[in-house]
Structures are given as structure tokens and as C-alpha cells.
């Protein structure tokens, strides 16, 4: 048999986590990510891990807090409404500087919405979601091999910076199938988890405490300054983006995740017709890949941001472009996935091609 396996997105993310050393998963079912906990419930016992279906998303994220505090590699997953329920715990984890990987397989919203794919959770993912001044590293794969590779890296990033990392997918990515390969990655050099609450035996009587409560204003400000310094480091070191056909692109389409794949099909058609169109695909949504924009600015005359939302990432595109070029937007909502033709039509309109 080949090394490649045919997997569903949700399964591939789960298997990648296990191969990255994740041995704890706490979750609660919700469509369209159920194959992820289902796979974990089957696989984790095979590798000596622990799977708990918690009584709610709130419980699950607090179990993640506990396992992360004890120094374990731990994951939880959910879909939009369930991720909303986890926000308090996520803020606590950011405050207590706990590494973990959280997966959001986004569905249509707001509210219960639908079970079809969406990208309406961008704001929640990159602008906070929970309370307080904190950031998550947010990674958005566009195909299953990339999902596998990013999940592997996400655990390293989480441990390196002691910060939760969010994998932002959508229903399409969770449900679709593609062959993937679980390849040996080069792990980063990671600091020892000497902060973890693993008992007093090896700490010469020193007690580690995992906590996000800092009552003294001066201490809490100092803690916040430390967090901001950490985020500044991440902002420099962890930007990821793909540039496609941008060398000569007069119009650059900006899209992430499944939408970016549809855009690629549209761009292939447009380039066959001789139009100079390129794609800037943010892979890290936070930190937003500002450096990639600097590369395309000299040639680009127009930007078009395409999302399965009313327009969320487009605000970050506008912040980066900072008025230097027009930024257009095209979006579909409610679980409607845009077609390559729809996107091509938008591009031609902006380029003034009849």
C-alpha cells in the first residue's frame, strides 16, 4: 500500500494531532465536525491517550485548560456555536499562557445558523472572541495535506509561545476527502515545560501555579505587557501566506481556506484568457500576513477580497493596504459557496473587461 491515505478533513486533522503527540481530547458533538471527536474516541485509546466527551463545550475547554496546565499536548474541536461557548475558557487559557490546539470547523451563522460551510467566524477568531487583551495564533488550511501539516506545526507553535493556537477550517474542509501523507516534520526546538503543574517531586519544593487571576493592577498590567511583547514576537515570526501568479498581477484576489481554492480555479480560467490576476492566500490569519502584501503592492492596482461571509477579513486587508489601492469585496453567506464563475465575473468587472 502507498503511504498516502484517503481521509476526510476531520479525520485527517485528528490523526495529525495524534502524530504530533496529542494524547488528550475533550469535546462535545456538533455538526459538521463530528468525525473529529469520533475518530479521536476510536484512535486515542489505541495509543494510550484519553478521550472524554464532556457534558458541554464549557466543560470541554476547561478540561483542555487542566490538561494543558499539566503539560500535556491537548486538543478540542467544535463548530461555530460550540466555539462561542468555549470563549471564556479560551480567554482564561490565553491569560494563563496555556498551549493547546483548538479546531473550529465553521458553519453558517449567526446563532444556530446552518450546517453548511461558512467563514463568518473570522472576527471571533482573530479579534478576540473572548474577553480581554489576548491573541490566538490562527491558521487556516486550504487543503487536507496543508491541514495535516499545520496541525502538526500548531502544537509546536503553541508550546513555543505558551499560547493557544486555533485551526480555522470550514464545513467543506471538514467533510471533503483527499489523499494525505503523514510525513515526518522537523520539530522546532521547544523550551521545557518547567511551568507545568506536574507535582512537587522534581521542583525542589517550588510550586507552579496555573492562574489568570492577577488582582493587583500593577501586576496585571505587567502581565499584559508581557503578553503583548509575546504577541509582537509572534507577529514577526509566524506570518504565513501563499502567493500565486502575483509577480505580474494587476488584480490580486485575497481569500483563505476553501474559498481560496475556488478562487484558484477562477484565476486559472482568467489567466487562460490573458488576464493578469493573482492570489494572495493568508494561511496565518493572525498574525495577518502583512509582509506578503508588501510584496504584491508594487504591481497590484486593485485588491478583491472574497469570503464566505458579509466581509470580515476585508477589514484587515484594508488596514494593510491603508488606502493605497482600492479594496473590493465579494461574499456569499448562509452556507452558499461561491462558484469559480461568480468570482471570475467580479474580477472582470473590476478590471473593466466587458
Amino acid at each position: 500500500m502507498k503511504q498516502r491515505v484517503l481521509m476526510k478533513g476531520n479525520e485527517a486533522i485528528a490523526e495529525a494531532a495524534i502524530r504530533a503527540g496529542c494524547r488528550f481530547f475533550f469535546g462535545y458533538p456538533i455538526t459538521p465536525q463530528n468525525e473529529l471527536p469520533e475518530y479521536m474516541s476510536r484512535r486515542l485509546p489505541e495509543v494510550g491517550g484519553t478521550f472524554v466527551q464532556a457534558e458541554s463545550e464549557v466543560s470541554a475547554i476547561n478540561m483542555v485548560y487542566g490538561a494543558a496546565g499539566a503539560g500535556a499536548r491537548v486538543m478540542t474541536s467544535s463548530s461555530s456555536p460550540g466555539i462561542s461557548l468555549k470563549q471564556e475558557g479560551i480567554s482564561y487559557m490565553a491569560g494563563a499562557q496555556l498551549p493547546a490546539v483548538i479546531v473550529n470547523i465553521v458553519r453558517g451563522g449567526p446563532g444556530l445558523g446552518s450546517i453548511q460551510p461558512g467563514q463568518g467566524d473570522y472576527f471571533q477568531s482573530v479579534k478576540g472572541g473572548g474577553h480581554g487583551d489576548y491573541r490566538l495564533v490562527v491558521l487556516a488550511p486550504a487543503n487536507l495535506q496543508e491541514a495535516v501539516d499545520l496541525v502538526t506545526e500548531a502544537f509546536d507553535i503553541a508550546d513555543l509561545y505558551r499560547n493557544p493556537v486555533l485551526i480555522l477550517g470550514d464545513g467543506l474542509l471538514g467533510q471533503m476527502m483527499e489523499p494525505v501523507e503523514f510525513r515526518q516534520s522537523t520539530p522546532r526546538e521547544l523550551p521545557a515545560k518547567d511551568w507545568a503543574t506536574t507535582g512537587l517531586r522534581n521542583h525542589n519544593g517550588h510550586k507552579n501555579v496555573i492562574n489568570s487571576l492577577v488582582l493587583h493592577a500593577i501586576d496585571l498590567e505587567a502581565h499584559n505587557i508581557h503578553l503583548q511583547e509575546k504577541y509582537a514576537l509572534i507577529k514577526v515570526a509566524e506570518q504565513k501566506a501563499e502567493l500565486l501568479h502575483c509577480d505580474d498581477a494587476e488584480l490580486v484576489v485575497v481569500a483563505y481556506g476553501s474559498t481560496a481554492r475556488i478562487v484558484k480555479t477562477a484565476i486559472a480560467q482568467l489567466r487562460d484568457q490573458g488576464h493578469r490576476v493573482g492570489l494572495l492566500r493568508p494561511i496565518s490569519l493572525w498574525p495577518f500576513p502583512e509582509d506578503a502584501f508588501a510584496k504584491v503592492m508594487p504591481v497590484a492596482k486593485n485588491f478583491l477580497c472574497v469570503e464566505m461571509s458579509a466581509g470580515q477579513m476585508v477589514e484587515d486587508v484594508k488596514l494593510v493596504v491603508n488606502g493605497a489601492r482600492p479594496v473590493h469585496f465579494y461574499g456569499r453567506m448562509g452556507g452558499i459557496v461561491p462558484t469559480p464563475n461568480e468570482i471570475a465575473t467580479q474580477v472582470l468587472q473590476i478590471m473593466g473587461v466587458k
Partner: protein
Amino acid sequence: MNSLWHHRVSIITGSYGSGKTEVAINLSLAKRSFYGSETSVSLIDADIVNLYFRSRDKFEELAKRGIHVIAPAGDLRHADLPALPASISGSLRDTQQQVVLDVGGDPAGATVLGRYQADLPEGSYDMILVVNPYRPYTDSVDAMQRLISAIESKSRLRITALCNNSNLMGFTTPEDLLRGQDLLGELEARTGLPTAFVSCVPAIAPAVSVMLPNIPVLPLGLYMLPPWATGNNYAGEV
């Protein structure tokens, strides 16, 4: 009859992601072209486990091609509820109809069948287990055997034959089907279940026929494509 089926009712089962829906759609189209227009062909979408890439998504397209798709109607078509229309039993009992039953994946999906056991006496149906050994949990003969007994126990029906749907989507070669057939051959030796047919995309079907001359081939026109796919390029521009 035809070499692809022996009975009026073809039940398509397997683990999720094995390719059941593509096989079910193409088998119903094969039945459509085999029988005259006076015979009605129904495709029953009884998948209450999976939520995306279901037969019902191709309702209009299949209706145009003379396939009657039976699936939850209205809002329920887009829901993840264990609700199925009463007309399923009607089709199973109507001896004039040709039926393909597309069941949800895994023993969980096959549980639905238990409810129709009274409509499906032994010897009245083909129950085909679609196998793709490139999927986790069906990558060995032992695993396949475990799947068979779990599906049979939940469905209260007997699997009658196998479908070799070995594939890595766009990366599939005829050799992949040949390797898959080795496993299915061993499975047959252990269980007595023959391979009813091999399924693959039309491009490699001739080569597969040459390699596996004794097994019928069902060429698969692909219906469950992602929105970026163009023609047969499943991946689009990766």
C-alpha cells in the same frame, strides 16, 4: 438481469468515505440505461450520518436523467436529523421498481436498514459492501471482516457481495485497484463473499478491465465534486 446486479434492490453499504454515494448514483444510472422507460428506477438516499456530498444534492440532475431520488423533503433535506420519508418502504415493496439504496456509512449509518428488514426478505436483494483499502479502518482484511459483522448486526441484513472501490481520488492508478483486489480476494476466501464489480473513473476503466478480466467494471462518472473542481480535475488548482 445484468452482471452488476442479481436482484431488483441493490443496497450500497460500507464505511463512510468508501465511495458509496458515487457507486450508488452510477449503479442507478446503469440500471436506468439497462431497463426500458416503463421501468421506474429509484435511488433512495437513506444517509442520515453524513451531511455533505449526499445523493439528494444531485436531485434535480438525476431527475433529468430519469432517476427518482427519494430523500427527506423541504427543510429536512438540509438537516442532520434521523428522519426518512415513508415512500422508502413503498419503493422497496413495489416489485415493478428497480431500487438502489444509498445507506449512511459505518455500522451507525447501516442501523437505518434494520427498520426495513421486513421489506427485505433474504434472497430479495443484493447488499454490496463498498471497500476502499486506502481508507483508515478498512486497510486490512481483518478490519474489513470486523466492518462486515458490525454492519450485518446493525442492519439485520446479510452482505451478499463486495465492490472494489480502491482509490486515492485523482491519484488512483489501475495498480491500486489490483492491490485492493488482492485484499478482497483474501476476504472472499475467508467469508465467501464474491466481488460483484470494480468501480473506477472511466479514464482507467479499460486498463482495469485488462488487469482484472473476470470482474465487471462499473465506470464512475463523478457527481460529488467540490466547488473548485473543473471537469475531471478533482483537486482544481492545488
